[in-house]
């Protein structure tokens, strides 16, 4: 229990100090790589071949960095933050969609009957706009749009 708690505190700390720890681990991999190449060269291997073998033996750097981050930090929170950032980016690139969604929510909150018509019209406009933009991108062919 004590160990678990200590590790959790360490994980939160590692999450906060991510850039510094990434740099530290990167340096450690550099040092590992250098020593491995030196040993291979000392055993008689040509330098270029030794570098190639060392890269294989050590493993892909990007993957190791990612796995190290997950092993020491809070991978679920990191993934959530990355998804949120991506969602905000996409919505900023296509502001019409959140705008229409916002208008629809506002209208439905007031709940008057004649506003249902407005909501339906907006929905149809949005649906057509979505399909049209997908069609323009070539994700859908015209046939499936018509049948939809």
């Amino acid at each position: 229990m004590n160990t678990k708690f200590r590790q959790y505190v360490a994980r939160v700390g590692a999450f906060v100090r991510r850039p510094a720890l990434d740099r530290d681990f990167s340096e450690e991999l550099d040092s590992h790589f250098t020593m491995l190449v030196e040993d291979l060269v000392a055993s008689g291997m040509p330098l270029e071949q030794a570098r190639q073998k060392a890269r294989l033996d050590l493993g892909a750097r990007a993957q190791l960095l990612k796995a190290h981050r997950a092993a020491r930090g809070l991978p679920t929170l990191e993934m959530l933050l990355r998804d949120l950032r991506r969602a905000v980016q996409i919505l900023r690139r296509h502001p019409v969609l959140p705008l229409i969604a916002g208008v629809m929510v506002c209208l439905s909150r007031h709940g008057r009957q004649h506003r249902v018509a407005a909501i339906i019209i907006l929905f149809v406009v949005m649906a057509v706009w979505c399909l049209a933009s997908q069609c323009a991108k070539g994700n859908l062919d015209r046939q499936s749009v018509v049948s939809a």
Partner: protein
Amino acid sequence: MKEDKSDILQGTLDLMVLKTLDAMGAMHGYGIARRIEQLSEKALLVNQGTIYLCLVRLVQRKWIGAAWGTSDNNRRAKFYSITRAGRKQLVAEAENWDRISGVIGRLLQLSSRS
């Protein structure tokens, strides 16, 4: 806090790292990886870089400590050494391992007779 590899493999690797550092003193990640490759015939490490995933976990549990230093060949490297909590853990893990291997040994003997 899901762990990728199976718990048994992970536990075996933890035990080997603790035992190695206990027997040989402070070592850098490269040295530990090479030692474990020799002992396990590459069964435990996908590649040498994987050792650092184990090391960072053990550091977070305060079973080992880490500090930058200089190697015999005058290379800058991060050195790991076992802590007092790590030695205690090693004793507990070794006893646990003995008990389990005893049970499995008896079980296998039993099935080969019948």
